[in-house]
């Protein structure tokens, strides 16, 4: 009843091509964004900002970047942690070495560094495909791990690769309290999500999906695989690099290479797959799932009043995490985004069965 499109006729192609052509969708999204900006700062606790909301936002952004590469362009990458690291350390170097460098510029330049390296590591994708490419991307991951540990220049000569930043502000407004950090990240996420959505529904997005679905046919209709794949790597690494900068500067404050290890890469890949490949919204769903799951698993024994020793608790978390991943993949291999889409289809017909 609520969700019917009756009466919503489009009279121009532009109207039909909007991101949310159905009025109800538009209203819900606007309400959600307004809620996130205006209401949440007053409703959530400091703990939730620090432990749930801000990490969720930043990891959604990283998952978004990864989804562009894996979900839309079909190139598997297991080296996302490396690009986050490059974005983080790149931004760090610009921030620390260039006097008066504004925060946002540093973060974007960090993203730029990640883009350059991303394109470089994208070159193998022109020859190598599938699982071979996936494992080859690990070369980027481990090389970067080593580079930030051993090459002193990157970390301003810190001995263990660990660095820190302080005094973050934008045009004089400090980014220090959890609420300020949350709003800063939220702004980044909203802008990047919009830009990414425009890209994937435009010409380049179709080129990416064509390469993903059948690259020989794509070449025959005039798409250049080189351009499509390298732009996918470039855009993806840029977004992931900025997310890495946010993670380091805003969420962690001080960090070392281990923050961007191969576990982070796997975590992001889980988010993208469970959330839904080839779906902007899916990146958010997946990030929410992966961020909330360990917190829930940790909190459950306490909730039920069962005392478990920490070692056992961590083993159980591993087990339940693994089991849930497998379960989810069996039940809905196309991710939460597909479940969501199916739910909406049903809602459009409700209360009629078909």
């Amino acid at each position: 009843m609520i969700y019917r499109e009756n009466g919503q006729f489009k009279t121009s192609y532009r109207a039909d091509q909007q991101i949310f052509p159905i009025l109800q969708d538009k209203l819900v999204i606007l309400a959600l964004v307004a809620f996130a900006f205006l209401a949440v700062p007053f409703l959530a606790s400091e703990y939730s900002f620090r432990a749930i909301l801000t990490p969720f936002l930043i990891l959604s952004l990283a998952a978004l970047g990864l989804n562009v590469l894996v979900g839309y362009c079909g190139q598997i990458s297991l080296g996302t942690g490396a690009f986050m690291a490059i974005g983080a350390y790149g931004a760090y170097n610009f921030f620390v070495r260039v006097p008066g460098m504004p925060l946002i510029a540093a973060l974007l330049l960090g993203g730029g560094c990640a883009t350059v390296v991303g394109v470089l590591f994208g070159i193998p994708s022109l020859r190598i495909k599938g699982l071979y490419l996936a494992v080859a991307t690990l070369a980027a991951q481990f090389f970067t791990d080593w580079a930030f540990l051993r090459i002193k220049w990157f970390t301003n000569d810190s001995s263990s690769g660990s660095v820190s930043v302080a005094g973050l502000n934008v045009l004089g407004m400090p980014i220090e309290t959890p609420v300020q950090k949350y709003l800063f990240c939220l702004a980044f996420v909203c802008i990047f999500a919009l830009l990414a959505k425009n890209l994937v529904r435009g010409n380049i997005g179709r080129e990416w999906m064509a390469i993903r679905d059948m690259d020989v046919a794509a070449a025959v209709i005039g798409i250049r695989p080189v351009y499509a794949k390298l732009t996918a790597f470039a855009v993806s690494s840029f977004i992931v690099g900025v997310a890495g900068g946010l993670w380091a500067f805003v969420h962690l404050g001080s960090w070392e290479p281990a923050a961007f290890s191969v576990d982070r890469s796997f975590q992001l890949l889980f988010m993208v797959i469970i959330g839904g490949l080839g779906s902007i919204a899916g990146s958010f769903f997946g990030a929410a799932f992966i961020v909330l799951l360990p917190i829930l698993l940790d909190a459950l024994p306490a909730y039920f009043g069962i005392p478990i020793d920490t070692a056992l608790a961590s083993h159980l978390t591993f087990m339940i995490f693994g089991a849930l991943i497998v379960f989810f993949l069996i039940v809905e291999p196309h991710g939460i985004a597909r479940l969501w889409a199916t739910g909406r289809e049903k809602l459009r017909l409700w209360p009629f069965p078909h």
Partner: protein
Amino acid sequence: MGFFLETLFGGLMAGMLYSLIALGFVLIYKASGVFNFAQGAMVLFAALAMARFAEWFPKWFGFDNHWLAIGLAFAGAMLVMIAVAYIIERLVLSKLVNQEGITLLMATLGISYFMEGFGQTLFGSDIYKIDIGMPKDPIFVFDKVFEGGVLINKEDLYAALIAAALVVVLSIFFQKTATGRALRAVADDHQAAQSIGIPLNRIWVIVWSVAGFAALVAGMIWGSKLGVQFSLAQVALKALPVVILGGLTSVPGAIIGGLIIGVGEKLSEVYIGPMLGGGIEIWFAYVLALLVLLVRPQGLFGEKIIDRV
């Protein structure tokens, strides 16, 4: 020169151990098209089982003979791995039959998380010893040719021999037995194999069990050398570049890839490492594999992927 040879031998033997783990990957990929990220967790799980059984069986069954304990522990661990193979096939593989590769890959990652947690819950998370009587002392060879001789670690030598024996056993299994033939048929074409009556599900259980066997042998050797601990699961990450260097579908590729990576790592660490600040073995294997793939995208011995339109 003697030093070079030492490094070379050391590399070859480390390489054999990588090949052992890589074999498990290749076996499963060949027969079920699944890239088993859980292979490392399987190595850890098998090694844990064997280590603890070797401790527990004497206590439970009241005997004292060390070799009997080891033998029974090996057998017990093997049974455990067969059970693992069966459960994975029933609960995971058969439900994900037609999904894309990346979904199966993620599922095996999920399995690996589960097994790491479960193994440590069942068997404990300390460092355990496996004592299979490997000699820990080195021997010196070629001492007539080179002054002082070339140092070879006896344990590594025995490990390499065991690995070689395993490869021979597996090759005979694949070439000469009916089950081996069935496995090769399934690897070539699932549907054709089914159409001549080969039961796909049972084949998968067998393949995962054989991979479990390879994991057990690898775990036993690595565990004897390093002690059985959580980090053993990470050693599988070392085997990945071996697999792709050799080609995902090639057993000889796994062996030769392992040797190349083993030698390359050792040589580069000794000769190139100091120039770059050390610690390059964390990425050398991967970069080497990447460079080879750029020239041969399907690995050294892998099947060429031809797209037909």
